[in-house]
C-alpha cells in the first residue's frame, strides 16, 4: 500500500530512542549475549533511520544501505557468537569483565 505520511522527525526520534536504549544496554549488561543483543538493537535503529530518510526523499538508497546494514549485522553476529563460544570455553563464564587480560 502506498506510503503513509509520517513526519520524519518522529521516526528519527524513535530511531534515536532505540539507539540510546541499545547503547545503555551495551554499557551496563555484563553478559556477552546481552551485549550482542544490544548491538543488534543499535544496528536496527540505524537501519530504521536510513529507511525513514530513504522514504522521505523517495529514493531507494535508504533501503540499499539498510540491506548493507543487514549484511554487516549478519556477519557481525555470526563472528560474535563464535567468539561467545570461545569466551565460554576459555573463561568459563560469559561475564565480559573477566576477560581483561589486554590492560595497560
Amino acid at each position, binding site marked *: 500500500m502506498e506510503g503513509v505520511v509520517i513526519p520524519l522527525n518522529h521516526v528519527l526520534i524513535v530511531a534515536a530512542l532505540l539507539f540510546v536504549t541499545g*547503547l545503555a544496554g*551495551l*554499557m*551496563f549488561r*555484563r553478559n556477552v549475549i546481552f*551485549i550482542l543483543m544490544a548491538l543488534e538493537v543499535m544496528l536496527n535503529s540505524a537501519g530504521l533511520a536510513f529507511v525513514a530518510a530513504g522514504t522521505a526523499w523517495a529514493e531507494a538508497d535508504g533501503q540499499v544501505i539498510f540491506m548493507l546494514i543487514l549484511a554487516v549485522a549478519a556477519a557481525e553476529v555470526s563472528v560474535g557468537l563464535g567468539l561467545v563460544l570461545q569466551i565460554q570455553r576459555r573463561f568459563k563464564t560469559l561475564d*565480559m*569483565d573477566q*576477560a*581483561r*587480560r*589486554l*590492560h*595497560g
Partner: protein
Amino acid sequence: MLQTVWLIPLLPFLSAVLLMVTAGRMPRPLVAMLGAGSVGLSAVVVLLFGMQFMQAPEPYTLTLWSWMRVGDFAPQFSFYIDQLTLVMMAVITGVGFLIHLYSTEFMEEDSDYSRYFAYMNMFVAAMLILVMADNLLLLFLGWEGVGVCSYLLVGFWYKDPANGAASRKAFVVTRVGDTAMALGLLLLFTELGTLQIQPMLDAANNTWVSGDTLPALAALLLLGGAVGKSAQLPLHTWLPDAMAGPTPVSALIHAATMVTAGVYLIARTHGLFLLAPDVLLLVALIGLVTLLLAAFTALNQHDIKRILAYSTISQIGYMFLALGVGAWSSGIFHLMTHAFFKALLFLGAGAVIHCLHHEHNIFKMGGLRSRLPVAFWSFLIGSAALAALPFTSGFFSKDPILISAFEYHGSIAGIGPWLWVGGLLGALLTAIYSFRLVFIVFFGEANTEPDRQPGWRMAGPLTLLCVLSLFGGWFALPLASVFPAESAHHPSMLIEGISISIPLLGVLVAWLVYYQRKVSVSRFTDSPTGNSLRQYWHSGWAMDDLYDNLLVKPFVGVSTLLRGEPVDKVYNGIVGVCQLVHRGLSESQTGKMRWYATSMVFGLIALITFLGWGI
C-alpha cells in the same frame, strides 16, 4: 757577543728539557754537572755580555720571532736588555749557580735527583725570560712559569700531602695576583695599544696626565700582581708555608729571585707608577706595614726556615718602601744585597738542617758554634748583613732607603718622617730576631749532635756568599740611566747617627735577652695578654685563618653543596612529570570492554556538544 743573549735563558731551559725527557735514567754526577753547569754557563755568558754591554751602555733589543699577530695586537718574542736587566740577570745566574752547586750535595741522597734539577733549571730559565722580556706578555709568560716552577719545587716531596697543600696554596695565592696583573695587561693594551714596555710607557706619558684614574687603575692592577708574587701584605700568607720545599729551593726562589719579581715589575714600569702618585704612596705604605708585621711575626717563630721566610717578607717590604718613596736604584741595590745575604742565611740554615738530620726547631739546636763552624760564620755574617750592621752590604743598601724615606715629600706632606720611624723600628726588630736566631742556635748548651760536616760543594758557595754579603755593598750599581734622577741626599748628622746606631742597639738587646739570659722576658710573655699576643704574632697576625674562613671554606662549601648538580634536578623534574602522565594514562586501560564503550560514549557526547554548538 750581544746577539747570543738568547743563549742565557736557553741553556737552563734545554738542560731542564733534557733532564725531564731522560727522567732519571742519567747517572747522578752527569745530572749534577748538567744541572749546575747549565746555570754556570749562562752566568758566564751574562758576565761576558755584561762586560761588552758596559762599554756601550745603551738598551739592546733582540727579536727572536713574532709571537702572534691579530689586528694590531702583535706581541713579539723579544728581549730588552738594559742596566736593570743586567743586574737582575747577574743576580739570578750568579746566586742561582751557587745554589745549584750547593744543592748538588744537599740533595745527594734524594731519589728524584734529576727531577729536582729539571725543575730548578726550568725555574731559572723562566725567571730569566721574566727579567729579559721586552713586552709585558712575555714577562707574564716568565711570571707564570716562575709560579708553576715554585709550585713544583715546593711540592717536590710529593709523598707528604701537607707539602702538596703548601705548594697549591703558594700557586693559588700567587695566581690571584697574576690574574690582577693580567687584567692590568688587558687595560694597558686596550688603552695604549701595545704591550711593549718602553713604547707603552711613552704612550702612557702622552695619553695620560699624572693623577688620572686609568693609570692609577693600571698601576694598581700591576701592583696586585707584584704583591702576589713578592708576598706582600694582602697575598703574603703563602711564603711561610712554601718552606715545605727543600732548603736550596727556598734560598733560590723565596729569597733571591722569584719574590723579587714584583719589585722588578714595579721598577721596570716605574713610568706608569709615576703617573699615579697615590698608588706609589700605597706601594710605600704596603711595604712599611708588611715589614713591621713580618718583623713582629719573625720574632715569635721557632722554625729556622719560617724565621727566614718572614724576614724575607720584611726585607721585601723595605724594597717596596724604597720604590714607593721613589728611591728606585737603592731599592734595586737592596734587592741585590738581600739576594746575597738571604741566600747565605738560607743555605746556612740548609747546612744546619742537613747536618742535624732534618731538625727545624731552633730550640732543639744549640751550641753549634764549635761543631758547625762553617754554618756559624755564614750565619753570623748573613745576620750582620741582614741587620744592616755598619760596613756590611745590608747597611749600604738599607740606609739610603731610610734616608730617602725621611726626605719623602710625595702626595701626603709630612709622612716622610713617619715612614722613616717605621723603617727604623723594622730595622731594630730585624736586628733582634736575626741575632736571636744566631744566639739560640749557635751559643748555649748543645741539644743535638750534628752527624756530619758540610762537604766542599756546600761550604764553597757559603764562603763565596759570605764575601759577597760583606763587600757586596761597596760598588754602586750603574742604574742611573734606567731610572729618573733622584734628588741627592744630604741628611743631617743626627738622622745619620740614629740610622747607624739602631741595628747595634738591636744586637745588644738580642745579646742580653737570648745570650746572657739577664733580662727575662718570660714574665711578660707568660702573662695571659702576653701569651695571647705571642700566639697572635706567631700565627702571622692570624691572616691565615682569616683567609681560610673568608675564602677557602666558602668555596669548598659551595662546591660540595653544588656537587649534586642542581641544574640536573630541573631535567629530572621533567622526566618525573613525563613518568607521572604515563602512569595515569596506562591506568585508564582497564581491559574491560564495557569501560571502553563508555569512554566512546563520552567521546560521542563531547563531539556532539562541540559540533552541535555550531547549529
